[in-house]
């Protein structure tokens, strides 16, 4: 078990220039998915998003759908997720967030899931189809087990909905770059910049700050660089999944390294404040995971 830092600490330690890499748990098999996650952390990912393969992934585009579907077809079970989180956190200090649709958590038991995730050393959850108004059980469990909860804000979100996402999130606010599903795009929507600014403004109006990591459609170092001029982190998924599927761990490591180059040059337009605000502050002690 390596020393643990929270997602927020990791993003702030990156100077507000975080790269977050998504990979599905158990794809193409459990051992490879663990190696791949460790490899992208070593190659420069600030944090890892580990996706739970799900039968009805409404927010995912074709690349992630194909990967998770093949993982389910080979017999993926949730136990593998906790095994993967424990194995990855034993080898890297990068926070491991789990990205999951809500029904698997509901079926497993919200508190039981949270407890197992914390025990495995996981940092928290990103919940694409759970909005704050339905999240009372999860928020209580996250509080009990000191886990991050990352909610989404979208270009279409009203100010009131952004306020709710800012208030309920801990770790960062998942800033949806474009109206659509996951997948590489040639240009990341201007909507992403506008949304990141709105989130910052709404947080300021509420007397707090919010870290904003932009996801959906980012696949190149240039896009990472561009996103980091107005946000605190860039999230890459489909491109990494495609690389892993096509070229295995060496390919995904190489791509992560090239994406990480996008985090190095220049300073962010408005770097994350060094002092953690109260709403997203995390004073969690370092935890030992024994899985």
């Amino acid at each position, binding site marked *: 078990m390596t020393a643990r830092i929270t997602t927020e600490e990791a993003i702030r330690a990156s100077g507000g220039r975080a790269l977050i890499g998504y990979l599905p748990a158990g794809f193409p098999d459990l051992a490879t998915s663990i190696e791949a996650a460790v490899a992208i952390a070593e190659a420069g990912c600030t944090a890892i998003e580990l996706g739970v393969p799900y039968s*009805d992934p409404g927010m995912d585009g074709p690349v992630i759908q194909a990967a998770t579907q093949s993982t389910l077809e080979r017999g993926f079970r949730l136990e593998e997720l906790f095994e993967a989180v424990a194995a990855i956190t034993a080898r890297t200090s990068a926070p491991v967030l789990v990205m999951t649709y809500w*029904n698997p958590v509901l*079926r497993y038991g919200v508190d039981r899931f949270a407890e197992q995730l914390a025990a495995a050393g996981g940092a928290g959850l990103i919940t694409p189809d759970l909005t704050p108004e339905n999240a009372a059980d999860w928020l209580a469990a996250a509080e009990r087990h000191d886990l991050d909860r990352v909610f989404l804000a979208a270009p279409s979100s*009203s100010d009131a909905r952004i306020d709710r996402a800012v208030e309920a999130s801990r770790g960062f606010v998942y800033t*949806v770059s474009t109206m*659509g599903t996951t997948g590489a795009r040639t240009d990341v929507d201007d909507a992403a910049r506008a949304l990141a600014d709105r989130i910052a403004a709404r947080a300021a109006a509420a007397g707090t700050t919010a870290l904003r990591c932009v996801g959906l459609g980012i696949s190149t170092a240039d896009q990472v660089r561009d996103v980091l001029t107005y946000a605190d982190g860039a999230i890459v998924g489909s491109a990494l999944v495609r690389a892993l599927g096509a070229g295995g761990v060496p390919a995904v490591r190489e791509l992560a390294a090239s994406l990480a180059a996008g985090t190095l040059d220049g300073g962010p337009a408005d770097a994350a404040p060094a002092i953690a605000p109260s709403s997203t502050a995390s004073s969690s002690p370092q935890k030992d995971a024994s899985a």
Partner: protein
Amino acid sequence: MTDAPAASLRDHHGPWFGGYGGVFMPEPLMAAIDELAACYEACKVDPAFQAEFARLSRDYTGRPSMLTEASRLSEQAGARILLKREDLNHTGSHKINNVLGQALVAQRLGKTRLIAETGAGQHGVATATAAALFGMECVVYMGEVDTERQALNVARMRLLGAEVVPVTSGSRTLKDAINEGLRDWVANVDSTHYLMGTVAGPHPFPEMVRDFHRAIGEEAREQTIAMTGGLPDAVLACVGGGSNAMGIFHAFLDDADVQLIGLEAAGDGADTERHALSIERGEPGLLHGMRTYLLQDGDGQTLESHSISAGLDYPGVGPEHAWLHDIGRAEYQPVSDAEAMEAFLALTRAEGIIPAIESAHAIAGAMRLARELPGSTLLVSLSGRGDKDVATAGRWFDVLDEDARQQ
């Protein structure tokens, strides 16, 4: 997160039906859902909207639909069987009721493009029809498996000007068509209305779709009283997502003496693993933006459903049905492929009415109930006609010529 039940079951509205329903959607779609819900609330109390919907229902759909006494079938069954003839609507099923209502809502929202999922193709055909009538673009998502077993309806949709997109993900059936439709919606939400075809999905869909089908039960209740002098002993309808059932049940919800029976597709049989018995064999969970009974494994993965009838091949069910089941107001029973096909032939031969295989599940339920309640009056929702199923039935009963069998 439940609300107190309304004094009348008929007055109950979303987003919650007991602990079922709600809105469990990705954030990018929440603005569209909120906009839709607000627009529908306004439409509900707008006399001009209601008048236009009534006019279309009368002049385009052909409402009210008839109530037909199935005399020869009744004689065989030992009970009086009345058929609510939604098969006689324009496009051949009940689906057009909801489609016209939602197309009006979409028009009011300023949307120019309709997208829909379809299983058997009836909802897709109805949506393509409404799109033609309203001058809107139309894309229909259909599981690849279903495009093969419902090829005629695919051709109908294309003739009407719709683009039909075969869905190759997941189980390649209705649930995956809904997933793909929702993905389209999130990418095109400004121009597009997602026209959900059943009483499922996030609020306001279950309530709105039910309301657009309420005429089925309201007409049938009056027609039954006029024909028999009283209420039926039971009302029966097939249940996949459950829109025709909710439409016919609704008028009878407060008539405590009237049994409401939904027939779910048992596929190969209730004792096998190949069925679509969402209520009988499912557990509460989340699917397509709602909390409801669904077929799922221990990890919360949705299981594939199976039915000879594409329109019932759905692993979930509308939240109002889940609630009616829990409070004991409606009962849900299985009907296997074999029982449904036997009833299909029985109705066809006794009355000269070829039903949709979906509707044949309700006929099978009525034949079974007649044995338990001889002499009773049974009102059956004949939700659609069987033209689309002739090839399937022809193969089942081995009445196709060799050439047709090859197709």
